[in-house]
C-alpha cells in the first residue's frame, strides 16, 4: 500500500471500504483496497476542498456497493436450509417440549453446522434457550407465584397476586418468549447457506 498522504475524507472513505470489505477473501480485499487507494491518489490531492473531495467520492460510489459488486463471482452458495438445517430449526423451536433434551440436541446441531456463522449461532441459542417450551414453563411458574393466606375463617389475603404492573411485565415477557424463538427460527432459515 502507498504511503502517499491523502485528504482526511479519502482516508475516512478507505476506512469505510475496508470495513465493508472484511467479508471478501483476503486477496480480493487487498487488491480492491489497492486499486481504490490508487484511484483516490490519482483523482485527489491533500489540499482539495471538502466539496471537491465529496464530488470525487460520490462518483466513486458507496463502499458497500463496490464490495457488493465484487461478490457475485464469489461462490457464496446461499442455497437455503436443507433437511438437516430444517431439523435443527424445528428442534430449537419445539425440542424443549421433549424435557429440553430435544432443544439441547438442536443447539448441538446448530453449533456443529457449517450452514451458519457465529452470529447466527449465538442468536439461535440465546433467543431463546429452550425455544417455545420456555414460554410454557415460565407461564406456569409466573402463574403460581400468588400466595394466599387465610387466617382462622377470615377473608383470604393474597400476596404476589396480579397487580397491573405485574400483569404488564408478565405479558411482555410472555410475548418475548413466544415471538423471540419464532423470529430467530425465521432468521436462521433465511441465513442458512
Amino acid at each position, binding site marked *: 500500500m*502507498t504511503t*502517499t498522504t491523502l485528504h482526511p475524507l479519502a482516508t475516512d472513505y478507505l476506512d469505510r471500504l475496508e470495513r465493508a470489505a472484511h467479508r471478501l477473501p483476503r486477496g*480480493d480485499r487487498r*487488491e*480492491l483496497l*489497492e*486499486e*481504490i487507494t*490508487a*484511484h483516490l*491518489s*490519482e*483523482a485527489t490531492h491533500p489540499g482539495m476542498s471538502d466539496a471537491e473531495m465529496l464530488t470525487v467520492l460520490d*462518483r*466513486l*460510489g*458507496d*463502499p458497500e*456497493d*463496490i*464490495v457488493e*459488486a*465484487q461478490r457475485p*463471482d464469489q461462490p457464496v452458495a446461499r442455497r437455503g436450509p436443507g433437511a438437516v438445517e430444517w431439523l435443527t430449526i424445528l428442534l430449537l423451536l419445539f425440542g424443549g417440549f421433549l424435557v429440553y433434551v430435544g432443544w439441547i440436541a438442536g443447539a448441538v446441531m446448530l453449533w456443529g453446522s457449517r450452514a451458519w456463522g457465529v452470529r447466527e449461532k449465538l442468536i439461535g441459542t440465546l433467543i431463546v434457550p429452550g425455544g417455545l417450551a420456555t414460554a410454557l414453563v415460565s407461564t406456569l411458574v409466573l402463574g403460581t407465584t400468588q400466595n394466599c393466606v387465610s387466617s382462622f375463617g377470615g377473608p383470604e389475603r393474597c400476596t404476589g397476586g396480579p397487580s397491573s404492573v405485574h400483569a404488564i411485565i408478565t405479558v411482555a415477557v410472555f410475548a418475548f418468549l413466544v415471538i423471540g424463538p419464532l423470529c430467530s427460527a425465521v432468521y436462521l432459515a433465511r441465513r442458512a447457506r
Partner: protein
Amino acid sequence: MVAIGDGVISQLRRGVLEFCVLALLRDDERYGFEIVRTLSEADGLVTTEGTVYPLLARLRKEGVVETTWRESSSGPPRRYYRLTPTGRSLLNAFAAEWVRFRDSVDTLLETGALT
C-alpha cells in the same frame, strides 16, 4: 411520462460494460484509473466508478485480461491491464454479435417492424 425500470438499464449496462473495458484495451494497455475515468466520461455507461474495479478483478481471474506493474513518473507504480489472446477473441466475438443485435433493435425501434 413512463419511467422505464431502473433494473432493465442497469442490467443492460452490467452486461455490456465488460466488453467496453475490453474494447478500451484493444490497442493499448491502460491502468485502472485511466480505464475508469474514460468509461465514466462516456454518457450513461458507468454510474459508480468504484464498481469498475471489481469488474477488472473478475476479468483478470477469468483470464481475459492480465496485469503488470509499471513505474509511474508521478507517484507509486501502477497496475496496467492488457488483453490476453482469450480476451481479444472474446472482444471480437462480442463486437460481431453486438452489431447484429444493435441493428435489429434499432430497426424495430425506428420502424416498428423488421423489414
